[in-house]
């Protein structure tokens, strides 16, 4: 029996949304928390069972920043106690873990809805409740190791580093980056539907840009002299010197609006790709744990230094796709200011930190530089793979037909599930660990591959959903019966 079960989008019972009082004492302690892995798993299930994180009824979550669906069934079925390998970074386990971890991290920040707070007050209180925060804190170290543990294996730093070597390396990275095309932007421009591709990309970055610099702002407080003040200058720029209209996230809202997208935090939660969540979570991972402070400033130095060129190209891409109707000021401002921020992070943060705290902090700084590039590359790969798949939904329908006609038994290893969806059933998005074939027996299924990216599958038709690709489903007809088969390689 395969552990993988592709379950239909059905509403779950959330009656187990429990409090900390339900937690038993640990049995076999783990290194980090002193709690047995099976207990941690149980806490994860309790965490994910919070009604806030249950299924939703709409693809866009309108003005409720506390509603953040997690695939509860994935939480139940996966083993989170081991680090994932890089090649598993877009699978079902990774998606569920990234969503949980993102929620854990973001309970540290203030989110308020734009309208009708009274109606959302219960959600607000639940999101920031001690029960939710304490459960989150208990599961956080395990999730971090599960998702980012592979970086320890993937990256090694050795040799006699100096401040001059760090500076040379950073300059080398910037020069290479500025000579290069930005693959994700090229992918948007060469997409079959550049407008939808650009919207997909804006949605991916919205999870970070709408909370501009919140993760790195974790390293502003405390007492650490000159470096602290220099980091503060970068944050002040990002927050528009307290002028709301100049705050970078406000500028980004204007970009979203002019492209016809919602500006509320996490309105497009369902469509955040695993890689995009990983990139957001990585900044939290190194900035929240202050023992990773030097790693964090390395990551920030690279991020700020490379972002200027990325923003210039991003702005060009948006204007090429949307013409004059798009407000690109957010990106134009960053093109200007991040050139300064890159220099500030390098000359005024990294270099003084090395001078003051010694060369022994350099390997951590360089590790941060490398880890950020590694995670960025993951996020880029995920985005481009999703774009290619979403562009080719018709082709995937044809492929399904071909597989079906050539005899299912030769290609399908096992039937994963048979499900009935009804119109209006709660919805969610998820990712699978293997390619799968969906066959509709009756009714009409809408297979969703992103915001405003979907295909309708009629009775007798099918579609191939590729491994790691984010997808969801709903029924267009009153009822839809379909089967899902896992495909062999």
């Amino acid at each position, binding site marked *: 029996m395969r552990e993988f079960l592709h379950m239909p989008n059905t509403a779950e019972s959330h009656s187990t949304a429990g409090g900390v009082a339900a937690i038993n004492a640990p049995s076999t302690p783990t290194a980090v928390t002193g709690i047995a892995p099976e207990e941690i798993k149980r806490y994860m299930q309790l965490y994910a069972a919070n009604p806030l994180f249950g299924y939703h009824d709409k693809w866009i979550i309108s003005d409720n920043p506390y509603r953040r669906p997690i695939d509860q069934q994935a939480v139940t079925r996966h083993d989170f106690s081991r680090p994932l390998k*890089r090649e598993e970074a877009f699978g079902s386990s990774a998606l569920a873990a990234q969503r949980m971890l993102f929620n854990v991290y973001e309970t540290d920040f203030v989110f308020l809805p734009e309208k009708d707070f009274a109606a959302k007050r219960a959600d607000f209180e639940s999101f920031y409740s001690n029960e939710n925060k304490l459960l989150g804190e208990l599961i956080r170290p395990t999730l971090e190791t599960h998702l980012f543990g592979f970086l320890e*294996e*993937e*990256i*090694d*730093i*050795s*040799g*006699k*580093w*100096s401040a*001059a*070597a760090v500076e*040379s*390396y950073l300059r*080398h990275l910037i020069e290479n980056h500025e000579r290069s095309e930005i693959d994700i932007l090229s992918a948007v421009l060469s997409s079959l539907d550049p407008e939808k591709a650009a919207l997909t990309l804006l949605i991916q970055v919205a999870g970070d840009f709408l909370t501009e610099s919140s993760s790195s702002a974790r390293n502003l407080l405390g007492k650490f002299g000159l470096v602290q003040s220099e980091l503060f200058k970068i944050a002040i720029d990002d927050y528009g010197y307290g002028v709301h209209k100049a705050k970078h996230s406000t500028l980004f809202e204007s970009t979203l609006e002019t492209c016809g997208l919602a500006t509320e935090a996490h309105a497009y939660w369902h469509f955040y790709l695993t890689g995009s969540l990983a990139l957001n979570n990585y900044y939290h991972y190194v900035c929240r744990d202050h023992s990773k402070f030097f790693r964090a400033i390395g990551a920030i130095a690279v991020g700020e230094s490379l972002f200027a060129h990325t923003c210039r190209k991003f702005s060009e891409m948006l204007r090429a796709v949307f013409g004059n109707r798009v407000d690109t000021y957010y990106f134009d401002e960053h093109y200007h200011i991040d050139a300064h921020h890159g220099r500030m992070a390098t000359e005024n943060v990294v270099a003084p930190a090395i001078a003051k705290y010694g060369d022994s902090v350099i390997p951590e700084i*360089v590790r941060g530089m*490398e880890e950020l*590039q*590694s995670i960025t*590359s993951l996020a880029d790969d995920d985005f481009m793979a999703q774009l290619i798949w979403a562009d080719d939904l018709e082709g995937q329908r044809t492929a399904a037909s071909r597989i079906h006609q050539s005899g299912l038994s030769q290609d399908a290893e096992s039937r994963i599930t048979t499900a009935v969806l009804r119109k209006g059933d709660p919805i969610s998005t998820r990712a699978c660990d293997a390619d799968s074939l969906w066959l509709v027996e009756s009714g009409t299924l809408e297979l969703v591959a992103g915001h405003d990216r979907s295909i309708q599958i009629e009775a007798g038709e099918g579609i191939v959903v590729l491994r790691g690709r984010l997808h969801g489903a709903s029924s267009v007809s009153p009822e839809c019966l379909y089967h899902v088969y896992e495909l062999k390689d």
Partner: protein
Amino acid sequence: MLVLTFDPEKFNFVAAGDDSYFLLRFPDGSRVMFQDRCAHRGSPLHLGCWNAGENALVCSSHQTKYPERVLRRQGVPLIYRAGRVTVLLDVASHAEARLARKNILAQPDNSPTDTSGAQGTAGA
């Protein structure tokens, strides 16, 4: 400084400026790059041997020892990520660098590394 990135499965030796450098791979998968010149009399260190008991590279000429921790701390600044090695060599950034694969006799696991005689040239 010259920044070079290369595939360590193809190359383990770099000549740049007046110096050359060799790559060692430890059993745990980590790597160091070290100048190929013994601090004692300048003999090529890649022709030394690995003393497993002392966990040290031993120069073939006069048995000068370089413990692993010294190699790690005193080696060329090196980053290994996703199957690629990046090194920063203390030569002019526009200097020409020649990459090669040699038989590194000092390799800790003693695995034969030579053979292909692969060669390449790399810039910054």
